[in-house]
């Protein structure tokens, strides 16, 4: 009786069918951001060639850039030298179609370093802060150009394991990144520089791409970033984001009471633990362990075979609701209780 009930259990709340494809949308978003970071330095080069009025003096390789960028932008701009200024910068601080946006960590770092509150600069971070309060660490999963490379790095780690290499699977203390954030901000006035800018991967990736394409090649940040890639391979999967990233720490704090959360529908869960295996941040969706670290990347939603993970509007995680109702463990416990009922 109880068994048939479980098998026939009508879905409590079946998620909208497109939610399973959000992970692909996320990859599209990451790719677009990364491609824009690649494109913007080329657009800048094109602008400098236009400003110089010297097409005849360009090298063939520079002419290639000029021609391709002209083809790309000609339908949209009439005066490339000035009109293309609407698309500038990186995710650290940039201009998106005339809208100035800055990373909240940039504002925090600037305030910590110079001790001055700059309202125009703070306003550029308001939209990201507001989105983070609602969506949590969405920047880490959906926009961060370093995440794009780190997730490819995770894939490389999988291949290396298949080839027989050992990759790091350590678990460190997640709270360490808050220490990194605090120390980075506290050291800024002593070092006389925005210290977090030098160790924050998205800022590094954005500016190093720009240095490499438009200026004289990679700077020292590229070495640091390569080090973080090695750290992820040798110490822990996505280890830098999980344990060291100061920006991730700030977003975790801002998004602690985020409204949009991935939650488990315990009635639909069959305890297959694929969500735990796929979670890049090593969280525990299988037992409702999301917390402030979850970056709403939706990889677990995409992998869940029973659609037991859904988005919910709630400021707090639900407590651990035990084994999923479609799983063996729950069925046995139910049988045990029903048998116990027969006995009494």
């Amino acid at each position, binding site marked *: 009786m109880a068994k048939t009930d479980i098998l026939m259990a009508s879905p409590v709340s079946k998620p909208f069918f497109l939610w399973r494809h959000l992970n692909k949308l996320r990859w599209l978003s990451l790719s677009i951001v990364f491609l824009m970071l690649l494109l913007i330095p080329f657009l800048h080069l094109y602008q*400098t060639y236009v400003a110089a009025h010297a097409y005849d003096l360009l090298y063939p390789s520079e002419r290639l850039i000029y021609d391709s960028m002209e083809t790309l932008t000609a339908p949209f701009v009439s005066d490339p030298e000035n009109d293309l200024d609407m698309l500038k910068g*990186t995710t650290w601080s940039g201009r998106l179609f005339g809208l100035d946006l*800055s990373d909240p960590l940039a504002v925090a770092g600037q305030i910590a370093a110079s001790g001055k509150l700059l309202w125009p600069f703070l306003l550029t971070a308001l939209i990201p802060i507001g989105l983070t309060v609602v969506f949590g660490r969405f920047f880490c999963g959906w926009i961060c150009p370093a995440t794009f490379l780190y997730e490819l790095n995770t894939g490389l780690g999988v291949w290396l394991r298949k080839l027989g290499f050992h990759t790091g699977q350590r678990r460190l203390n997640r709270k360490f990144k808050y220490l990194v954030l605090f120390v980075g901000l506290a050291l800024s006035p002593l070092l006389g520089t925005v210290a977090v800018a*030098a160790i924050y991967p998205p*800022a590094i990736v954005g*500016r190093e791409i720009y240095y490499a394409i438009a200026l*004289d090649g990679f700077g020292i940040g590229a070495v640091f970033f390569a080090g973080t890639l090695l750290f992820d391979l040798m110490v822990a999967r996505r280890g830098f984001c999980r344990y060291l990233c100061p920006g991730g720490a700030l977003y975790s704090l801002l998004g602690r009471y985020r409204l949009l959360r991935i939650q488990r529908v315990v009635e639909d869960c069959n305890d297959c633990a694929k969500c735990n295996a796929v979670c890049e941040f090593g969280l525990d969706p299988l037992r409702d362990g999301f917390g402030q670290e979850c970056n709403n990347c939706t990889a677990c939603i995409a992998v869940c075979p029973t659609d037991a993970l859904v988005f919910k509007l709630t400021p707090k995680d639900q407590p651990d609701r035990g084994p999923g109702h479609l799983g063996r463990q729950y069925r046995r416990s139910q049988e045990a209780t029903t048998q116990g009922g027969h006995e009494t």
Partner: protein
Amino acid sequence: MKRRKVLQRLALGVASLSAASVPYGLARMLAPDRPTTTKIHYLRPPGALSDAAAFNEACIGCGLCGEVCPPKSIRFSDREGGSRLNTPFIDPAKKGCILCGKCMEVCPTDALTETEREDVEMGIAQIDRTACYPWVDRGVCGACVVACPLGERGIGFDFANMYRPVVKKGCVGCGVCVEVCPHPSLPIRIAEPGSSTVVVHQI
């Protein structure tokens, strides 16, 4: 036995090093005081905070000023510089600043504040009159005067000789004159604001 040998060699090394430092120290102490040069090795973009430390603290290293610079004269200390790391600079020997003002407009913080092009204070040009071609009567030139984005306010010709350039008080130190100077030793250069407009030689 082995340890004693190592210790002996270490002591010998320390002793020879300290002995070698004695003549160097004496020479340093006996050397006359030289005036420190006022030449700047790198310029900040226009509108930069005049205090170097305050600039490093205000700049978040986003690279926007470089990305809007039409002649690509703004570059970044990307491999060295300590607290200057990732901050913008202009090397006038490579490319001077054309004072278009785009970088001041785009800077998200107050590291670069919007300034009128006449009020920019990047430095002031100095001319070495013992090297500049017209000043040593090695021909006519006037490249710096032609190129100056501020025109007659920044640099002009000497009253007596049409081709001898003289820096005027309106110079803001944009460095275009350094960029165009044909002399290989760059007799025109940018010094700190308020310096003399003529290089003073001390022998």
